[in-house]
């Protein structure tokens, strides 16, 4: 009984155990609860790294929930897999690593950040349910199971966004996110039901192997792309995102960033592995590219004029999602044209996927730094801040690293992934790169504004009592800073070990289908 084969199930079992144990452990006091919070999220990160190493070495890891043996996908001559199958290829393993690092950093941060509030037992179980929903979305191979994990993640994030139930804005943000997300999930369920009705199979690989692109598939694809693009905050449907990220407690905002990446993963999994080559015509790739462009430009123009720090960072996450949609949309555009893919399509996908990793790291760091300022000064409006660098040196240093990384200044990882996207997208049409460059300039402009007004400037008398944030929060930010600096100093290692296998796995639809349908024994 080799534990390496059971890693996909362990990846979900550990947060589930953490979520169920939280109410009991909280009866025995605060330190035990913090130990549970940090321990379970650390173990989840370990399992994620082990799973990534396994997939890198051993190819696609298939796990049948409740089957005779873990890889018995087609029991005794059945034509279709009947059980829920977890399929972890290099792209989902890459996403699982990003998500679990963000969850670990958020958990570390929340131990000190939430100590003054009541009801933290419920917070810890909701936090682990959100991690469970996110990780489940990333590794499941079953389409209806993907819907269930979306719902687990959504309900947990409604509860966590509206966690400070006496702050009117937080409850309003939670309510608006719940409204739009519930309508989206019902439309997604119609797409899942119609795919099941026609192909009598719920497994993504099984549907992918039998799919012909008819009218019903077109509508199902549109419903899925619309819902998942809304969940990751692309332009016309992004308005809930800055509200929800700004009003949630900062440890949760750091995790919500990774949860929106899980729905981006779902969008790409459906477009590449479910529809893949028989994605008729190029309307959907161009739609994704135009949504990416619109999110980039309008996200950052809205962000420049904000004067409330977490809303500004929230609008920046809308514009950064635009980069990823652009990179992967170009990859989708040239999926069928081999010469285009070899020339610039694969580089664009590598850029998009590398940007997912960088974005999850530095955006989480920005939210945690904003939370640290909020914890230390109790204020969120930039007009009232000033001269914090004197009292909070570590937070200032980490904020500088994150701000430099997000605006793509040369040595940092943001620059490398944006460079990959600029150069490859230029080959499709120069205008795409022009918009991307303009957005990067405006991102730098808005973060210079934030840094100058919040950290520099003369010493304000009202902030004399400000002290550096406690160590738990600094460790949380330190984990993400380490990840950003690691990707900065070793870009070629990160690219060849983390990003390239993920891009190859995403392009290789036949491998994804073969792992399940090819007998699997």
């Amino acid at each position, binding site marked *: 009984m080799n534990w390496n084969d059971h890693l996909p199930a362990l990846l979900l079992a550990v947060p589930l155990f953490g979520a169920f144990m939280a*109410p009991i452990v909280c009866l025995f006091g605060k330190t035990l609860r913090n130990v549970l919070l940090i321990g379970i999220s650390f173990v989840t990160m370990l399992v994620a790294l082990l799973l990534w190493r396994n997939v890198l070495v051993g190819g696609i890891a298939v796990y049948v929930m409740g*089957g005779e043996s873990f890889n018995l996908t087609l029991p005794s001559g059945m034509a279709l897999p009947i059980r829920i199958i977890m399929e972890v290829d290099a792209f989902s393993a890459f996403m699982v690593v990003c998500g679990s690092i963000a969850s670990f950093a958020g958990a570390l941060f929340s131990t000190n950040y939430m100590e*003054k509030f009541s009801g933290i037992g419920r917070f810890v179980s909701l936090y682990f349910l959100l991690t469970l929903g996110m990780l489940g979305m990333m590794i499941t191979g079953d389409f209806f199971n993907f819907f269930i994990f979306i719902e687990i993640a959504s309900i947990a994030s409604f509860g966590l966004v509206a966690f400070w139930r*006496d702050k009117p804005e937080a409850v309003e943000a939670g309510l608006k996110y719940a409204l739009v997300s519930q309508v989206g999930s019902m439309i997604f369920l119609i797409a899942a039901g119609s795919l099941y009705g026609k192909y009598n199979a719920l497994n993504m690989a099984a549907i992918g192997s039998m799919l012909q692109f008819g009218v019903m598939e077109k509508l199902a694809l549109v419903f899925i792309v619309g819902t998942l693009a809304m969940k990751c905050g692309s332009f016309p449907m992004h308005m809930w995102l800055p509200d929800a990220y700004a009003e949630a407690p900062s440890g949760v905002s750091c995790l919500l960033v990774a949860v929106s990446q899980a729905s981006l993963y779902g969008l790409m999994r459906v477009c590449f592995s479910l529809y893949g080559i028989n994605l008729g015509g190029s309307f959907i790739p161009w739609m994704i590219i135009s949504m990416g462009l619109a999110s980039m430009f309008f996200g950052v123009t809205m962000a420049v004029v904000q004067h409330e720090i977490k809303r500004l960072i929230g609008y920046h996450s809308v514009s950064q999602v635009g980069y990823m949609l652009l990179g992967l949309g170009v990859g989708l555009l040239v999926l069928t044209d081999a010469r285009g893919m070899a020339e610039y399509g694969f580089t664009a996908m590598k850029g998009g996927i590398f940007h997912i990793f960088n974005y999850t790291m530095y955006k989480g760091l920005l939210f945690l730094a904003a939370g640290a300022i909020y914890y230390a000064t109790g204020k969120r409006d930039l007009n009232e801040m000033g001269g914090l660098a004197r009292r909070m040196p570590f937070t200032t240093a980490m904020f500088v690293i994150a701000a430099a990384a997000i605006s793509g200044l040369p040595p940092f990882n943001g620059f490398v992934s944006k460079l990959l996207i600029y150069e490859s997208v230029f080959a499709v049409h120069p205008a795409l790169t022009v918009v991307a460059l303009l957005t990067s300039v405006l991102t730098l402009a808005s973060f210079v504004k934030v840094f100058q007004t919040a950290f520099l400037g003369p010493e304000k008398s009202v902030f004399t009592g400000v002290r550096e944030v406690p160590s738990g929060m600094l460790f949380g930010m330190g984990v993400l800073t380490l990840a950003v600096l690691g990707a900065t100093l070793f870009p070629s290692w990160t690219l060849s070990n983390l990003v390239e296998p993920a891009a190859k796995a995403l392009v290789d639809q036949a491998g994804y289908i073969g792992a399940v349908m090819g007998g699997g024994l």
Partner: protein
Amino acid sequence: MRPLSIVVRTGCDLFAWFLVIFGSTIIIHGDVTPGGGFQGGAIVATFLSLLLVAYGGKKLLAWVNVGIFNGMLVFGLLAFFLLGFLGFPHSFFFNFLAVPHEIAQATGHGVIPPSGTIALMDIAVGLEVAGGLSLIVLSMFKGVRLFREEHFEEESGHDR
């Protein structure tokens, strides 16, 4: 809410516990009838809402002990997780108690129901949903009076 008339309260006294019995039969026979953990648990949870309507808020909140529902919720969740975990040599949710069809056919229905862990998971889910839904009904009822009479201390953290 004020308690209702004596007629309703005695009717509720007579009828309330039979609801729980009916709900638990649906839970226990979950694997062989169209019922199951969730539906049975929902019926058991109507026990608390019937009491809430009949006896009004104050008497019920004084009578009810929320710890029981928390205990049921956590016990059901952990039992479900443990049953999943015990299947591990094969795979996560493996049904290790299942009796193969021909043996069950030959010996008739033995003590362990033929569907193995599915029946036990049903009962665990039934307990959990009964506790969970009752908690939902109670907390939504408390939410109605959240800010009015109960002294609601401002969350001390964020407006420091």
